């Protein structure tokens, strides 16, 4: 095109600006499809608002940056921040290294997962820093392999520094207009190329949610080239875009890349996935999730802590709290997310390992668990984070494999729970479950359950969630964990009553109400510990619940612990058959049976509507229990919860039903 040599100054200024923007834009393009934290595919936080969908196309408003080169990109704060540094001088090259970080494949996937969560959190909060100095902080102690898989070099050589010759192409200088047009094309090419190179596949895999990867991508931006070793260089291929000549110099863009990355990808991802899969597949947890897809959101909200949410989403939101599913020990994940890493992990880690090992005697385990819980609560409650709940469960040196599994998975995998409940007799789970249910409904168990749930609800309330949502969320949380257990225990009726109680309770529920019951429970804790039988089962139930439900309420920590202990004590033995269900009821203390009955009645009376909704889940769960152990266990847990809620509600509301009074009495008597 016509070269405007007349206005050299203005021209050069324009060119200068174009080049500056070119640096910015090219960095933006590269990072957008290489940096997981920045990428459009992985929007989070504010970015989501601006452009949720994959490509920049989603955002309708045109921003000043978008107009440059007529290429509208997604919001990419980190990239832009970095770019500003480059503006100071166009003379320096911009080198963008894309780094593949591989974790050792032999690492325990469980351990990896929490860290990954951390890393992500990091990246979100500190994108800027991350961009410049990616990997280092994320995996501090771990052995990691870093490898530069791409090196992008954007460079503007001014003619002065370069020799007079303009490289081989036409010497004729380019006007700013022409430069602009050419750089538009060059950036379009860059945009396409970035997506064609093998590293893009890694990036895509990283951003596909729900997968654990043994690798991560990082990037480094600097103004100098850190030379490769010969071997490294031999592995790389170069792709150079045709440089653009201008009046004052030449603008060039090139990339060195690893042509073969597919191997890396496959290796890393496969092992982990296989390990994880077993837990999820067929586990009751998955089903519950599907049932209540909406729930996860609410649960996430309650935690309120960003990391927490992330974590959930990553592992599957609903269980997020419990989500550690991926990781054997839920606690570690929590600790990480909440920032208690050191303490939490230390406490929690042992449990994870222990669970796998042969079980201890139930009694000892129970007691230890209870103690741990108490301690954990005290310590952690003060802090808003969930840590308390996880810690208690993990610490459980859970005697049996079942317990340990249950604990570990408790959050994530229902199956484990069921096994735990089954304890001695795996085949009889349903029957075992049944006996406990009456007790739960009865006096204390109900309360305990309520307590457990109650904390969760209050938190939800705090988060401004509507009562209904809270209830649902509670269900989900509890449901997965407790649902199976409860369902097995309870006959359909029971489940109804529980459900109804929950609902009603939740609606009415206020934070203040809960505190009282919990306080009462605290005293009882010691007693609970002494009771071995029900304890195991109850514990299991309670523990899984804890993470989700307890954390929010600080007030009633002790009370909650007490309630949990009670639950455990009162919980019917897992070993009993369904047939024995009635028998077990009879055998159990009168109070319990009465209370259960009463609860049922009251619930029926008060909340028929609620029953319908709640009952559906309970019913299904109960039926399932017969055939499925884990699912049953979960359902049972739910049933327990419901019972608790009912009891709590009733206790709180003495007004409603005469039955309530009875129940309360029975409960109080038990506690005392």
């Amino acid at each position, binding site marked *: 095109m016509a070269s405007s040599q007349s206005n050299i100054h203005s021209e050069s200024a324009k060119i200068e600006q174009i080049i500056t923007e070119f640096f910015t834009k090219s960095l933006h393009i590269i990072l957008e499809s290489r940096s997981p934290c920045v990428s459009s595919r992985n929007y989070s936080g504010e970015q989501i608002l601006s452009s949720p969908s994959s*490509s920049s196309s989603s955002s309708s408003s045109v921003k000043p940056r978008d107009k440059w080169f*007529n*290429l509208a990109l997604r919001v990419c704060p980190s990239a832009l921040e970095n770019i500003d540094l480059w503006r100071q001088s166009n003379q320096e090259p911009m080198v963008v290294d894309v780094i593949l970080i591989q974790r050792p494949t032999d690492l325990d996937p469980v351990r990896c997962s929490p860290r990954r969560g951390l890393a992500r959190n990091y990246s979100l909060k500190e994108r800027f820093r991350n961009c410049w100095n990616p990997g280092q902080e994320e995996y501090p102690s771990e052995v990691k392999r870093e490898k530069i898989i791409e090196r992008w070099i954007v460079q503007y050589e001014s003619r002065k520094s370069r020799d007079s010759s303009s490289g081989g192409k036409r010497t004729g200088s380019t006007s700013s207009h022409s430069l602009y*047009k050419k750089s538009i*094309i060059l950036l379009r090419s860059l945009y396409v190329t970035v997506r*064609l190179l093998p590293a893009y596949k890694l990036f895509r895999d990283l951003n596909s949610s729900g997968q654990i990867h043994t690798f991560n991508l990082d990037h480094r931006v600097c103004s100098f080239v850190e030379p490769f070793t010969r071997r490294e260089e031999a592995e790389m291929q170069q792709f150079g875009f045709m440089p653009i000549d201008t009046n004052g110099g030449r603008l060039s863009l090139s990339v060195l890349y690893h042509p073969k990355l597919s191997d890396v990808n496959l290796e890393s991802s496969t092992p982990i996935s296989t390990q994880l899969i077993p837990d999820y597949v067929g586990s009751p947890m998955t089903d519950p999730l599907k049932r209540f897809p909406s729930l996860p959101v609410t649960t996430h909200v309650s935690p309120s802590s960003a990391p927490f949410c992330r974590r959930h989403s990553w592992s599957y939101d609903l269980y997020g709290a419990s989500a550690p599913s991926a990781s054997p020990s839920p606690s570690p994940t929590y600790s990480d997310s909440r920032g208690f890493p050191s303490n939490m992990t230390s406490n929690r880690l042992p449990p994870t390992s222990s669970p796998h090992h042969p079980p201890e005697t139930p009694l000892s385990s129970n007691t230890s668990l209870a103690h741990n819980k108490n301690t954990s609560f005290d310590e952690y409650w003060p802090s808003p984070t969930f840590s308390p709940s996880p810690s208690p469960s993990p610490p459980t040196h859970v005697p049996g494999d079942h317990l340990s599994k249950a604990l570990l998975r408790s959050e994530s995998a229902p199956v484990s729970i069921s096994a735990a409940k089954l304890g001695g007799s795996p085949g009889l789970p349903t029957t075992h479950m049944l006996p406990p249910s009456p007790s739960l409904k009865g006096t204390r168990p109900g309360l305990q359950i309520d307590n457990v749930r109650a904390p969760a609800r209050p938190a939800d309330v705090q988060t401004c969630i509507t009562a209904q949502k809270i209830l649902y969320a509670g269900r989900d949380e509890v449901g997965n964990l407790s649902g199976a257990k409860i369902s097995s225990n309870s006959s359909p009726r029971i489940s109804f009553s529980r459900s109804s109680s929950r609902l009603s309770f939740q609606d009415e529920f206020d934070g203040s109400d809960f505190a009282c019951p919990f306080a009462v429970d605290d005293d009882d804790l010691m007693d609970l510990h002494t009771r071995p039988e029900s304890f195991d089962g109850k514990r299991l139930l309670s523990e899984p619940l804890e993470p989700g439900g307890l954390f929010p309420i600080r007030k009633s920590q002790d009370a909650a612990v007490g309630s949990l202990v009670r639950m455990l004590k009162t919980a019917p033995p897992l070993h009993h058959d369904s047939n024995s269900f009635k028998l077990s009821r009879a055998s159990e203390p009168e109070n319990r049976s009465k209370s259960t009955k009463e609860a049922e009645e009251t619930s029926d009376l008060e909340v028929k509507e609620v029953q319908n909704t709640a009952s559906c889940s309970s019913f299904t769960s109960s039926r399932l229990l017969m055939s499925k152990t884990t699912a049953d266990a979960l359902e049972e847990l739910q049933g327990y919860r419901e019972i608790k809620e009912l009891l709590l509600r009733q206790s709180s509301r003495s007004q409603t039903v005469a039955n309530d009074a009875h129940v309360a009495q029975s409960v109080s008597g038990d506690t005392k």
Partner: protein
Amino acid sequence: MNCEVCQLKELEVEHFEIREVLRCILHTIVFHRALGLVRPKDIDSELFEITYVQCGDAELEKKIEEKIDQFIGWVEKHPNKKSQICLSFYEVKNKQATWFSNKTERLYWEQWYINLNVAQQPKAHFAKSHHSKVVVDPGECALVERSVRRAALEAALREVLFQIIKFVNEKRDHIPPVPNVEGVSFPYEITIPSSSDSSFGMDVIKRMLQTGHPTMLS
């Protein structure tokens, strides 16, 4: 202005792959020639491990799909033939005064020839593919063989896309001033072989140019 012509490397495709291959190629080319404001849209190919970029222009997408349909129709009528699709960019002479008149003249400044060699397949499998969906033929072919072939095609397609990128970057001086600030900036045209074998070629294109309306202004 001279007309730059790019002959893209020939691809061996099966019938059901035509659509995806053409999508990748056509959109990639147009994206490079859409010098107006564009919000790129990443598209993961349904068939290949390839992510290509669209301009986010619904009109353009529609047009491309139409042309692909036409082409597939033609292929079905003319099995076992090498076929060619031409994407050309042109300028309209006297565009200010006679933009919409039939007498406007098109000056072609760039042409892309996409060369496909469609392997013959039993028609049953792909009988009629829908616009949006790629018809995957269950096929009786050995899966292994198929996967190998697919991988080869994918690599070749990737190569073609790089060929586009290279060409676009090497030939930059023939591009006329950008008439449109919005999206797809240059008028373009996609030509497929017509029913008569001889009809496809520059002559035909020129004839069409004389009478045709500018296909796309925006």
